[in-house]
């Protein structure tokens, strides 16, 4: 056990890893020339600059204390892997602070970088491609030790020791990766991450490439190693069963953001965020007597390049908060009208009544109708901001106000949703 962990045990208040407002964006167009687009309709020069970016991770906050396991779940493409890669330093964060052991990771010089590498290691997802086919597994395992400048004899003996610890044989030192099965390769991956005795291991879907029985073996091995070395895991997965087994705390991620965090048992039994509930609903039930799974979530994850306004989940949310007097269809029309106002391009001309008729097939509540008429009038005068203001009172909080993570129940259960904190159905899982 390394001394840093022991020291931190005494000082339990300080988080081992603390992430504040972390953002990782990838530009859609690489380079200046690529981002210039031809646009005929524009006044003046017919070019626009497209500087949009994929907001893979967009404002994530969390603290990870020594010895605990934080599980991050979410759909494909929600930014889980990018979060892991950013924390470990494989991607540069666009904004935000990553503190490891109280020190800002992004400001590290070479010496600090080395210290960081000795304490933070990563386990990769794909057991087939994460080992170099041209190198002996013993040497691969000892890579972190080599990077730390340990002598060759120490590296060799440590690699053999580790091979045995992860349930392989030390004679396998000189074998090549293709001689191993998927599960064995993932053990080698684990051994590589552990060779330098790190405090924090970031595991990016470590078992999703393996079959069920091997998954269980790897997970229990990871648990054993955590007990033995006091490891801290940041565990990324899309498998809720795996996360329930492994994690002390769970964070649910949606389009680059955490929407709900909490202790594992609480999150699984009393989920608050509709997204968490939908995810839990989508888990197949092995009981043959119950009816099948009804997928509540429809459609795809929205594009992280241009995420929805307000709560990012509102486009698919089964518990969308409708303003007073609106029906679901009526609000959809209202939202469409509002989007056109935001885009400053109404679809119809003529008197305000005609425009309103062309947008709305259904009856609007009286005051909402008045607000829409005012908005059309303002828009036709070119006062687009005024038009938006008059609509504001009738917007749903879900698509206008971005919810923050708020305490739900217990000190560590947080959810980012406009639903009241006590409106929380008990959940059978």
């Amino acid at each position, binding site marked *: 056990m390394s001394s840093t962990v022991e020291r931190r045990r005494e000082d339990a208040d300080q988080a081992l890893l603390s992430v504040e407002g972390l953002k990782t964006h990838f530009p859609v167009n*690489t380079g200046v020339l690529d981002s210039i687009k031809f646009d005929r309709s524009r006044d003046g020069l017919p070019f626009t600059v497209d500087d949009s970016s994929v907001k893979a991770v967009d404002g994530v906050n969390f603290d990870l204390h020594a010895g605990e396991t934080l599980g991050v779940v979410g759909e494909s493409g929600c930014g889980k892997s990018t979060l892991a*890669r950013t924390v*470990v*330093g*494989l991607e540069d964060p666009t904004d935000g602070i990553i503190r490891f052991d109280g020190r800002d990771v992004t400001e590290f010089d070479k010496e600090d*970088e*080395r210290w960081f*590498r*000795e304490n933070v*290691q*990563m386990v*990769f*997802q*794909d057991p087939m*491609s*994460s*080992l*170099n*086919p*041209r*190198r002996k597994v013993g040497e691969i395992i000892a*890579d*972190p030790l*080599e*990077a*730390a400048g340990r002598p060759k004899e120490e590296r060799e003996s440590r690699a053999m020791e580790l091979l045995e610890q992860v349930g392989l044989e030390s004679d396998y030192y000189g074998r*090549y990766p*293709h*001689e191993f099965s998927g599960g064995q390769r993932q053990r080698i*991956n684990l051994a*590589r991450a552990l060779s330098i005795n790190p405090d924090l291991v970031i595991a990016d879907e470590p078992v999703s490439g393996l079959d069920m029985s091997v998954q269980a073996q790897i997970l229990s091995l990871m648990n054993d190693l955590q007990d033995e070395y006091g490891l801290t895991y940041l565990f990324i997965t899309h498998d809720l069963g795996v996360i329930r087994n492994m994690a002390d705390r769970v964070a649910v991620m949606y389009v680059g953001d955490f929407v709900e965090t909490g202790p594992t048992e609480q999150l699984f039994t009393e989920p608050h965020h509709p997204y968490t509930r939908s995810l839990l609903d989508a888990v197949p039930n092995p009981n043959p007597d119950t009816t099948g799974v009804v997928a509540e979530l429809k459609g795809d994850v929205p594009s992280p390049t241009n995420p929805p306004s307000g709560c990012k989940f509102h486009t698919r949310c089964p518990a969308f908060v409708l303003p007073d007097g609106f029906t679901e269809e009526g609000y959809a029309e209202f939202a469409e009208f509002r989007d056109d106002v935001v885009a400053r391009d109404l679809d119809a001309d003529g008197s305000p009544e005609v425009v309103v008729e062309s947008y709305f097939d259904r009856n609007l509540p009286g005051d909402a109708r008045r607000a829409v008429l005012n908005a059309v009038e303002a828009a036709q005068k070119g006062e687009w901001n005024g038009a938006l203001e008059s609509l504001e009172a009738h917007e749903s909080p879900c698509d206008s106000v971005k919810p923050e993570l708020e305490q739900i129940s217990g000190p560590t259960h947080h959810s980012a949703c406009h639903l009241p904190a006590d409106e929380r159905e008990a959940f059978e899982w």
Partner: protein
Amino acid sequence: MSSESSTATNTEFEAESGIVATLKELRYSPTAVSGGFIVAILIGMGLFSTIDLYVFDKQLITALLADPHEMDQINAYAPPSASHPMGTDQFGRDVFARVIYGSRIALAIGLIAVGISFVGGVLIGAFAAYSGGYTDDVLMRLIEVLYSIPGLVLAMTLMAIMGASIYNLFFAYGIIGIPAYARVMRSEVLSIREEEYVDAARAAGLPTYKILLREIIPNGFAAVLVQATLSLGGVIIGAAALSFLGFGVQPPTASWGRMLNTAQEALLIAPWVAAFPGLMIFLTVMGFNMLGDGLRDAMDPKTSLKNSYDEDNLPVPGADDSGTRTQTAVDDPTSPNIDLQDGGDD
């Protein structure tokens, strides 16, 4: 007799990828085998002349044929005969001996120039692709500038600047070859750098040069190796052309290009002086190209040179190693076709 041991171990190598497997598969390509045969003879000639020149001071070749540098004016332009199998040139020097000594120069130019291009191209290409961004752009545009100048013209210019010597010839042809290798390597590395094991090496904290040399370059080697064998012939022709034009190897060193140059004065009265060096250049280039073609086919994952099922090559039950099997073939007259099998495979 080695066929049994190789069939027995073949299954183990099946799973192996890359250079070793490629070389193993080459055995099934008749083109590559004949190309390899020609190249092997050439290398034999080159080794012989080098050893003869430095260790025995041309005693071996003098004993066998004649001293390649010794002039004999009386016998100038003698036609091929028993004492001079390829005739003699205008100074009465034995053409055969000079052809053998010329192989040394041709091979040296081929190997050293290709070596320079190979190392330079692989390093530049891999570094450019791994770094990406502006480094990649700048490096590759510079490489393309080099690529846009015709090779022979660039070589002549370099030789004119640096002076005609064999070392400058190596250097000039080495520089000219770099762009082709750099481009092949770059395209390989562009896909390799996305592999998870490269990320893993970065996460482990290995320095960039180790990632390049250990994780990336060895995995992209195969395609560049084909490029190397295919361009060897071209480099040898190019060097011969430079020598022919008078820029390359200087007399009295025997080089095929230089021999062709001097032979053109007497092409009608003594065609053998030009024919044999020309034939050697032709054979050499053909040998390397055939080997390269075979390598390229062997490397293509979609085709297999090896027949999926070969009736004559089935493993015989009960006979494990070549020793015992030969024994049974000799002792047991009832199994004559086992003996046949032993010899037929190599």
